[in-house]
């Protein structure tokens, strides 16, 4: 061994400890049990420990850390929704991302490069005007741009002048951006575990002990855990997990597929999304072009990929950027999305007094990782739902107060 290396090997700082400790023994009880070790659950754990002084927290993860939808989303961060309630919530989410690397002392590679959504029909242009006005009213940077504006923002786009898919304009969202999804989860996990939160991987919840209107304990493959409060944040498994507690959520599960190309030099400097083509693209900091689109056309609990959907994505991508035709695909995957009827999440109380929901994140959950964790931690710590979350309550379906974000969600994540 070269001698010069020895002085590092013998220093007190060596070996460098890992960011996330190994799974400890499961204790018989915790103040808060968080089901789901993805971004949302870990973010909630971090906020509980750091801002509310609640450190007896266990995060239970069936598989490995952040291996579900946290690792499968296409990393879009934006707040250009259409309902005031939705925009207010997602705006706070974007603001938290802006300082997330400092908050976590972990580089999440947040890149606020803006999102350009394309309109190929007059109807879409009209809906963009509505979203832009609403966005401006709520204090976000959202505006409609004309063809010239689109060309300036993304000169490599095929405008298809005179063609059937001519780009008539765009919705330019300067607040939009992207970040490295794994880093977000790891950063939260590292911070949370440093403050005493226990992260239990390979720990599957198999049932609940319910007495009256409270969850007394969570049953896992590693034993029973008594709990003060419980949060369900299990992404595609939310329906399934809630059902074990006797709570039937208005959720249907659909696969959502995505893929990446081989790495290319940086050429795509914004997030680009087309409503009509059900395709969106973002270039990662590694140079890979991430291509995503709409959900599968029918319900399924499966993360298999299909040629049909990949062809569809490739068709959309090559239409927008014809020079991508010779580029090779590197990876493909799918996640299971828990879709709500109104394309808004379900956050807050459940019919059980100490069971809280962070569910219904469908295809739009990554951007809300910091804000959902922050606000759900506040909810659990204070025992009541803050105003910003109230519109997302499960009861909205019974009172027909839906938050319709379908037009601002479908295929433009």
């Amino acid at each position, binding site marked *: 061994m070269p001698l010069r290396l020895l002085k590092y090997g013998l220093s007190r700082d060596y070996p460098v400890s890992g960011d996330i400790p190994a799974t400890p023994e499961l204790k018989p009880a915790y103040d808060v049990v968080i089901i789901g070790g993805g971004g949302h659950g870990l973010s909630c754990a971090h906020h509980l420990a750091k801002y509310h002084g609640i450190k007896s927290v266990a995060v239970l993860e069936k598989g490995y850390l952040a291996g579900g939808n946290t690792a499968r989303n296409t990393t879009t961060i934006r707040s250009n929704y259409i309902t005031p309630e939705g925009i207010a919530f997602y705006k706070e989410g974007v603001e938290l991302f802006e300082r997330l690397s400092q908050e976590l002392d972990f580089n999440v590679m947040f890149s606020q490069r803006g999102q350009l959504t394309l309109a190929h029909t007059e109807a879409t242009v009209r809906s963009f005007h509505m979203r832009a006005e609403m966005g401006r009213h709520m204090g976000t940077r959202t505006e409609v741009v004309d063809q010239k504006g689109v060309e300036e923002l993304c000169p490599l786009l095929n405008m298809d002048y005179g063609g059937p898919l001519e780009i008539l304009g765009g919705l330019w969202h300067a607040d939009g951006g992207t970040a490295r999804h794994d880093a977000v989860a790891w950063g939260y996990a590292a911070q949370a575990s440093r403050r005493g939160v226990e992260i239990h991987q390979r720990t599957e919840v198999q049932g609940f002990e319910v007495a009256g209107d409270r969850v007394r304990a969570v049953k896992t493959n590693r034993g029973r855990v008594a709990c003060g409060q419980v949060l369900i944040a299990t992404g595609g498994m939310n329906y399934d997990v809630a059902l074990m507690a006797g709570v039937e959520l208005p959720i249907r599960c659909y696969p959502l597929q995505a893929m990446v190309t081989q790495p290319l030099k940086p050429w795509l400097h914004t997030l680009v999304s087309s409503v009509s083509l059900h395709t969106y693209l973002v270039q990662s900091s590694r140079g890979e072009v991430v291509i995503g689109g709409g959900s599968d056309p029918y319900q399924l609990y499966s993360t298999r990929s299909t*040629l049909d959907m990949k062809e569809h994505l490739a068709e959309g991508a090559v239409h927008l950027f014809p020079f991508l035709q010779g580029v090779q695909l590197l990876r493909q995957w799918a996640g299971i999305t828990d879709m709500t009827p109104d394309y808004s999440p379900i956050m807050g109380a459940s019919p059980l007094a100490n069971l809280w929901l962070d569910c219904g994140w469908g295809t739009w959950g990554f951007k809300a990782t910091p804000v959902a964790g922050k606000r759900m931690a506040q909810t659990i710590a204070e025992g009541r739902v803050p105003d910003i979350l109230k519109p997302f309550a499960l009861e909205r379906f019974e009172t027909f107060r839906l938050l319709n974000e379908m037009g601002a969600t479908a295929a433009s994540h």
Partner: protein
Amino acid sequence: MKLLTCPMNGPRNIDEFQSFGPVRAKLDPNATADRDWSRHLFRAENRKGILVEWWRHVPSNYFFLAERDLVTNEIIRTFDASQLRDRA
């Protein structure tokens, strides 16, 4: 290519079909509380297991039913809607 066997047109590419979601029981509009309407509208079947669902063969505009496994995606059988009426 995944095949779906249409009761009228035989096995066809599943691309030719459109899913219309789980079969739901009909409600009596004169005797249904708001709460039950909300349930009817928004809580569709999503349990892991066999789903009975509506499909439409788009070119022929023929609606029929299928039993499909929500985990394995296996299509167990397809049948004409009249059989559902007979069963009920």
